[in-house]
């Protein structure tokens, strides 16, 4: 390796860009699915809903104790077989790599977000619940208008940190032969024998995005600290 030649990066930029877009879309979709499901999961724990609460608890424990890559394999290889059995004819029903990625990441994140939100719910002062009771607010309004907004505010830095990890984890979709930013880069790198340049540039892109998001976390923390000089 005599000299670095970054021209390859500029020539192949559209391909890298499409990979980056996929990574970002997957991160966005998974965090939205994860937030909605995770909040529901956390509420089943918070309300100690019989049966469902236990099932969710077990689900969260399971997901959090196995690697994401294994969950991806399960969904890609096992769920089609299960669906096939359920449909009756026994033949596997493929769900496709893209769908697998979106569903898996969403379900995986839900387990992590749920834990963050559950802890956040426990941190809300009991007086907040009592004030809602005294004002005759329904349970639904209590959570929607008073409790959850506070939980999300307090938890937003941790949720965003988790989302940064999620963004980095999207690179695992290579096992499903999907092309994310890293996947695009490594294909180009091998094709053109420009491994160093490609991996350097890709690292810089990850660094730029993740540190921008971290900055965002920091400013959120700061803003919350001012607005939230709570008693």
């Amino acid at each position, binding site marked *: 390796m005599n000299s670095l030649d970054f021209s390859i990066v500029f020539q192949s930029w559209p391909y890298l860009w499409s990979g980056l877009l996929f990574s970002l879309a997957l991160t966005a979709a998974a965090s939205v699915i994860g937030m909605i499901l995770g909040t529901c999961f956390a509420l089943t724990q918070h309300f100690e809903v019989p049966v469902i609460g236990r099932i969710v608890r077990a689900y969260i424990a399971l997901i959090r104790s196995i690697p994401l890559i294994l969950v991806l394999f399960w969904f890609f290889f096992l769920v089609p077989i299960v669906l096939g059995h359920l449909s009756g004819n026994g033949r596997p029903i493929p769900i496709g790599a893209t769908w697998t990625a979106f569903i898996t990441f969403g379900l995986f994140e839900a387990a992590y977000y749920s834990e963050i939100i559950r802890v956040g719910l426990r941190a809300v*002062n009991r*007086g*907040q619940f*009592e*004030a809602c*009771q*005294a*004002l*005759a*607010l*329904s349970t639904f*309004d209590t959570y929607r*208008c*008073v409790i959850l*907004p*506070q939980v999300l*505010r307090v938890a937003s830095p941790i949720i965003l940190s988790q989302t940064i990890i999620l963004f980095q984890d999207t690179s695992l979709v290579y096992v499903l032969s999907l092309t994310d930013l890293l996947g695009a880069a490594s294909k180009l790198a091998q094709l053109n024998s420009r491994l160093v340049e490609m991996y350097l540039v890709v690292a810089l892109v990850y660094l730029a995005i993740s540190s921008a998001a971290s900055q965002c976390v920091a400013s959120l923390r700061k803003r919350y600290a001012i*607005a*939230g*000089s*709570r*008693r």
Partner: protein
Amino acid sequence: MLQDNTARGANLPSAIVAVEHVVKRFGHFTALSDINLSVTAGEKIVLCGPSGSGKSTLIRCINHIEKHDGGRIVVAGVDLTDRVTDINSVRREVGMVFQSFNLFPHLSIVENCMLAPMKVRGLSSEEARERAMGVLRQVRIHDQASKYPGQLSGGQQQRVAIARALCMQPKIMLFDEPTSALDPEMVKEVLDTIIGLARDGMTMICVTHEMGFAREVADRVVFMDRGTIVEEADPETFFRAPRTERAKGFLQQIIH
């Protein structure tokens, strides 16, 4: 008109709050034993007594934040003991002010006051805002309406908490040691607000150790100790000539 009033008076129970033989336990600890208290509309009751005597528990039972274990509580004609009772129908008529304010930190002052009228009373946001600003003006804090609770002093926060409860237009107000979390210089502004409310004829039950306040507004002082009502009298009689030893001892302690 007069006839109409008497006819309605005859149909309504004379007490707006009736507490009969109420018992409340926390595990093995009996917080309230055989409490009887009747409050008529417009009456101002001051509840006092040493800490742990059950006074806070009693007013928390009146709007069912604590559930009593025995006896009967009837508020504005609704029996809280009935299983079928919609508790929120009672809570709509009962305002409560807490020792630690319990304002919603993520909502501005005016939004704190608008939330329940909109969600519970079904007011539009314009109506709720108008009502909230009116009540905030009444407690003299309308110029802070767009701030957040964390930006206000304790006394101001407690006045907002009073305003928030008043926006529901309750028939009864419960105060649970409204000034004991405040710095001394802020006690007066909160008490003045409550006194103003009393002058307007609000029915209120107030747990407090502010004896000057009790003398000024109370129709009756109820002294509690160890989960029972020990003595009940008008403020002059109670402060000048308490009948029981326990009340004498308590008064001596808080005067010093």
